């Protein structure tokens, strides 16, 4: 799988799992389906951003940092929309970003190197 596809799959998978953990919080259990869908979409967005970043940069360190930032920012947006549960949303959301970044670089296929330009014989116009 390419970096982008890997990031999308991992992001969606971890996002949905992250959403499912809401089941352990009884007061939000009635809204579980909405939370799972929202969390999956958040994971897909994070995966898309991280995947394109990983494809462009092609280095583990920067991708991990980018994944952390994207995971934290998206989680912050969700927490602001919820007007609460900051810690419960921010901390795992950030970790999902880190995991997506790592999995993208570790398991995604690196882009093929660009072919070297052909040398032009000296004197050729």
């Amino acid at each position, binding site marked *: 799988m390419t970096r982008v596809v890997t990031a999308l799959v991992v992001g969606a998978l971890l996002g949905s799992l992250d959403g499912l953990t809401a089941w352990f919080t009884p007061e939000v259990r009635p809204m579980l389906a909405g939370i799972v869908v929202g969390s999956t979409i958040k994971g897909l967005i994070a995966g898309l951003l991280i995947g394109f970043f990983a494809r462009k940069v092609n280095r583990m360190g920067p991708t991990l940092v980018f994944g952390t930032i994207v995971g934290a920012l998206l989680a912050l947006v969700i927490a602001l929309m919820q007007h609460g549960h900051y*810690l419960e949303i921010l*901390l*795992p959301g950030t*970790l999902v970003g880190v*995991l997506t970044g790592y999995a993208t670089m*570790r398991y995604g296929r690196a882009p093929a190197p660009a072919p070297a330009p052909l040398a032009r014989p000296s004197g050729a116009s």
Partner: protein
Amino acid sequence: MTALDDLAVERLQRVLREPDLEGTGYRLVGLLGRGGMGSVYEVEESALQRRLALKILDLPGEDAEQRLRREAEVLATLEHPGVVPIHAVGTLVDGRTFYAMKRVVGTRLDAASVRTLTLAERLRIFLKLAETVAFAHARGIVHRDLKPQNVMLGPFGEVLVLDWGLAKRVGVREGPAGHGVTGQPGDTAPGAALGTPGYMAPEQAAGAPGADDPRADVYSLGALLQFLLRGAGSGEDLPAPLGAIAARAMAQAPGDRYPEVAALAADVERHLAGEAVSVLPEGPWRWTVRQARRHRVALALLLTYAVVRVLLFLVRRT
């Protein structure tokens, strides 16, 4: 005799030992080393103003000359980054045969501090070595004297296989020189010596038919793998898959070894990639341990996530 006289005699002997390079186009720079068959000198090629190495027979002789010329032919056949390129072959005014090759800079494997390298770095050295030997086999040449002393590590990660003096074209009958081993481990002498104890396949030591089979090199590569992993004289245990690979490569019977160097290298590559090796049957436990090791970072991150989730859940409940 006084100390001064001793020095004078020593200097005289050294001058007498120096080869006369008149008419060769080379200017002597210095001695690089002595082997069983000849000496290697650093020279400067006058025409191109470049430094080369010149291997010169110590004494003229039909057997040794044949062997040196055969080595030169082998080197000329093997155009590969792992083999020192040869430039010319010729005869000195005193009748001794020589050949000129690239002057390589580096450290011999037996003198290198392999123990300071990581396991992966050592295995990559081994793979480069195996690639060169596999290339030679593909050209029908068996080295027959692979050992740490005949491997040079360059400053830019080059791995060179040296001393092809005992190499043989598969299917070509041996010359007048017989078979046998040198008295000192690590020493390769002309004529009588066709291998080095500790690195030589049993059939080579016994002079059995088929001793020039490429699987003799597979045995030596197994011994070199052990050397690379343990370092000289260490009793450190090998990782089980690598131990199994070395054991298969060093099987007593050629038929029990890897059939070719490529198969041996493929198993080492599998181990490097965290995959199962062909010579070690893997039960569920070993499979689980290998997978856990291979994906340890991802597992650690998932575990961290799970722990954070549980902690948050507990905090909320209290």
